[in-house]
């Protein structure tokens, strides 16, 4: 297996030929492992997955891992230095611009080929947003092994996989309403006395003490 074939650009161009209309984007991983990935659009994700599985050059027949990522809404501060003439003197002025980046949820698929013994190819699918638009196409019809892991992502991140044969919570109970792996998850206040609280636990202890004082002080 030549290394070029596994380069994300190669996969991208190959999939673009096989699945017309697909929108792919390469996400470069700058760390030493250099495990680059491909973002595939929601509408064509199922077709792209089928193509990668059936294409004789790739034969991605094994999904080793499916995981979720929560990208909350963030504000990006950019400092732009400009030279302006103020009172006849040229000065450097710093302007900060704040850009709001909307949040989304992401499912990441790590694909390998047992037949051709190569991989991984990493697919990412992103939801529209973190509220109502939390739907993604399920890849379980392509890889049966993704079933439980997609259920786990549904359970902990709240991504709804359309086309999943049995989408239920898998770790938490059915009545549970929260998504514990999301960044904005608030856990139930069941803090207990600790002799030497520190760091996060100290924060928790203070909040708990305030809550007890404001309610009943049991």
């Amino acid at each position, binding site marked *: 297996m030549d290394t070029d074939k596994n380069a994300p650009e190669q996969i991208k161009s190959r999939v673009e030929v096989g699945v017309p209309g697909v929108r792919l984007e390469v996400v470069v991983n700058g760390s030493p492992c250099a495990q680059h990935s491909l973002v595939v659009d929601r509408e064509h994700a199922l077709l792209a997955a089928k193509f990668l599985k059936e294409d004789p050059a790739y034969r991605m027949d094994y999904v080793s891992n499916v995981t979720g990522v929560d990208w909350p809404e963030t504000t990006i501060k950019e400092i732009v230095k400009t030279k302006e003439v103020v009172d006849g003197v040229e000065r450097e002025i710093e302007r900060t611009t704040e850009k709001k980046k909307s949040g989304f949820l992401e499912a990441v698929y790590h694909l390998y080929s047992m037949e051709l013994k190569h991989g991984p190819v990493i697919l990412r699918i992103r939801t529209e947003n973190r509220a109502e638009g939390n739907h993604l196409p399920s890849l379980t019809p392509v890889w049966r092994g993704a079933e439980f892991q997609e259920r786990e992502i549904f359970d902990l991140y709240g991504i709804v996989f359309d086309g999943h044969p049995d989408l239920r919570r898998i*770790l*938490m*109970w*059915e*009545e*549970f*309403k*929260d998504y*514990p792996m999301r960044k904005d*998850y608030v*856990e*139930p206040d*069941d803090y*207990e*006395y600790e002799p030497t609280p520190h760091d*996060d*636990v100290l924060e928790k202890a203070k909040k708990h003490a305030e809550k007890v004082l404001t309610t009943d002080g*049991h």
Partner: protein
Amino acid sequence: MDEGLRSELSKQGIFTTTLEDLYNWGRKNSIWPLGFGLACCAIEMIATSMARYDLARFGAEVFRPSPRQADLMIVAGTVTKKMAPQVVRLYNQMPEPKYVIAMGACAISGGPFKQGYNVLKGIDRYIPVDIHIPGCPPRPEALLHALMTLQQKIDEQVLTGERRPRHLNADVPGEFPVPEYGEHDLVPTNNPDVWQPPALVRED
């Protein structure tokens, strides 16, 4: 019976005892545990029951597959919030007199998962625990020590009067409410009759 008279009689070859002693002696030497494990502590529990540590020396080797036949529940391992109602239900199904050993850091307090959203911070929040064993996991010797402590506890139980145990007191309920799955946590988060959150007393 007077201790001096008893020893005098035993010298003459007459063995005397009380019903209480006989009853407790029989019970403490045939504690049948319920055969279930929740996590890695169960491996130590299994090791304890095998030939090297030999739980059979204490008459407790008969791990029962049914709670109806068990006297002792060894909560061996992490109790997740999803599992907690089932553990309480199993405890309710055991016939009196019944005892509980909470084995390992997780079963007594939540252990390394104490800060987690999904782990119960000690099974003593829902059912009365007789013996707590710390350790992660406790060694088989620790479990044997817990069993011996439980035997001592059973031996010291009085069958009549104010201090009689729960199973001989008809006024005390023997069943404990099973928690329900709530939207964010178990409901209720603890059984107030069994466990209260520790209150910090500051001397200002």
